[in-house]
């Protein structure tokens, strides 16, 4: 070991001060190199101190054996509608492996698209985009390529309809479990809070009541949403190529979607 713990600590303190000074003066390249020095010093400090004490066992959850796309697929299958990464992670957390992390999903859609382009329909399913009424990919939503086209496109009412649907699906799944996890109950409560009549303000949600309330509101939007989605889906099938039908078209003009 080249430096004593004390000396390392002094060095770390000094480097931190320099880094902050550089950041403040927006001397970015200097800050970058100082940060590198700092990281190395901290690592050395970590190593030095761990030589003195044993490393405790990690409490990380067991990594899942399923690949990420399988886990996402599982969550989407439960939800039955296009969903944002956050919700996918929450569902996975509540019902399945609990090993998904938001950042792991960011490049998923791009990877799937690449795979589809190089070898179309080679896989049984693709994790694809949901399409807006402009036929462009909706930001941040994941869908399942095996779903019928009407489910993979969005009208203005669809975000709400899909939210209500997914709440019902989560509640239904809960009723099937003999001993649901607290995380699952919390997920349902959080979703139900935003549906009128689905939950008492702070009490845990009752799946049966949540389903009834969500269905009641769904009744209100269902017809209009189905009509709008059918219209978008029809346009998609007549105007788009195969890959675009799954991953969306680039936006061309502003007026087409608005009218």
């Amino acid at each position, binding site marked *: 070991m080249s430096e004593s713990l004390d000396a390392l600590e002094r060095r770390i303190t000094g480097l931190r001060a320099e880094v902050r000074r550089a950041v403040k003066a927006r001397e970015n390249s200097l800050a970058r190199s100082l940060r590198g020095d700092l990281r190395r010093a901290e690592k050395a400090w970590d190593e030095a101190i761990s030589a003195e004490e044993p490393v405790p066992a990690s409490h990380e959850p067991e990594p899942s054996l399923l690949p990420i796309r399988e886990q996402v697929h599982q969550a989407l299958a439960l939800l039955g509608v296009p969903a944002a990464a956050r919700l996918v992670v929450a569902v996975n957390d509540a019902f399945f492996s609990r090993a998904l992390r938001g950042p792991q999903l960011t490049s998923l859609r791009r990877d799937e698209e690449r795979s589809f382009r190089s070898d179309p329909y080679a896989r049984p399913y693709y994790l694809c985009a949901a399409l807006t009424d402009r036929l*462009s990919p*909706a*930001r941040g939503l994941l869908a399942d390529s095996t779903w019928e086209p009407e489910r993979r496109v969005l009208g*203005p*009412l669809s975000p*709400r309809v899909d939210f209500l649907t997914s709440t019902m699906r989560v509640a239904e799944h809960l009723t099937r479990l003999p001993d649901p996890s607290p995380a699952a109950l919390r997920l349902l409560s959080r979703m139900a809070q935003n549906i009128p009549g689905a939950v008492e303000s702070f009490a845990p949600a009752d799946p049966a009541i949540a389903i009834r309330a969500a269905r009641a509101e769904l009744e209100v*939007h269902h017809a209009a949403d189905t009509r709008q989605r059918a219209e978008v889906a029809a346009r998609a099938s007549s105007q788009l190529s195969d890959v675009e039908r799954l991953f969306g078209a*680039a*936006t061309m003009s*502003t007026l087409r979607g608005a009218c």
Partner: protein
Amino acid sequence: MNGRLDELRGPVPSHPHDARAIAALAANPGCARRALLDAAGVDKDRTARHVGFPAPFGQSQFAITRGNVFEALVKENGCAELLRLLRELLGLPVSEVGYQDVENVGAHLRHSHTRALIDRAARESEETAVFYDHPLFSLEIAGHTSYLEPDVVAFQLGGRFHIVEIKSFGVIDGQAEPQKVAGAARQAAVYVLALRTLLAELGHDPERVSHDVVLVCPENFANRPTATLVDVRKQLAVLRRQLARMTRVDRLLEGIPEGLTFDLAPDRDGVPTRSAQELAEALCQVPARYAPDCLSTCDMCMFCRDEARGNGSTDLLGRQVRDELGGVSGMAEALGLAEGTLEPAEGQEEVARLLRTANLLREECLR
């Protein structure tokens, strides 16, 4: 006039004003230096940095993360949280749930798409969305177009638009920090004005944009959002006043020397080549009106404070002290009057008498 302003800024694009910057115009309108820098679209932050007086503003990553997480929470699932809040606050009917993400078009189309969507909403009340997420507005500031990004625009049955402002500071037992609410209100007023301007351009009644903005904040110590209506009529009045003032910047231009410029003369990599000394001298050609409040509102504050120190100005001690000294602007002068080493000039007799008495009292009590 614009030519002269371009000359002041130098050959770089005008620094865009975001809503926060526009709202800050009202912070110290009496300051000619700031008014001119803003009107010319000079990047004050870079300028202050270059003359060696960076502003002491910074934002913690914790605060930024918190803000982003909270905004995402409010908007997730088609603004499900926001929908609940508006149903409670504005009595939104259950059938009104439409959601449009303006950002679904490419960035270059967002502004025109916003216009088209808002126009459609204003024309037909049927089958329009309630939420317009990521809209992009524009506003003319002293001859330059500034683009503004409100959090959400809500369109309610009954034909009224509401600006939704999402902030991550807490509302605890119905109250939030008044300064933060004021900041949010000023910012929201900019969006209200921009949307009203847009409606007027499209031939609709601008008053269809409500002056009640919806402020969404976390409630108490949790993440659960709560919404409050904030009346921004006063902020709107102030904003209009300040924007009107900016068009009168020609009065300020009259007094400044020929050829004056705040050009940083950036090289090909954008690194300033202008001598800091020279730039500082140029800045000093336009009088500032420094007050300690500037320390929390203006990028130039450290530079102006240093200048006020150099001049021995009573501005350093705050507006109240300055007022208490009855218009005596120099510290040495005020002390001289107090200690009787300086004869009062015409019009200073009274304040001199007051300071002299104060000085005698201090001496008597501290003897």
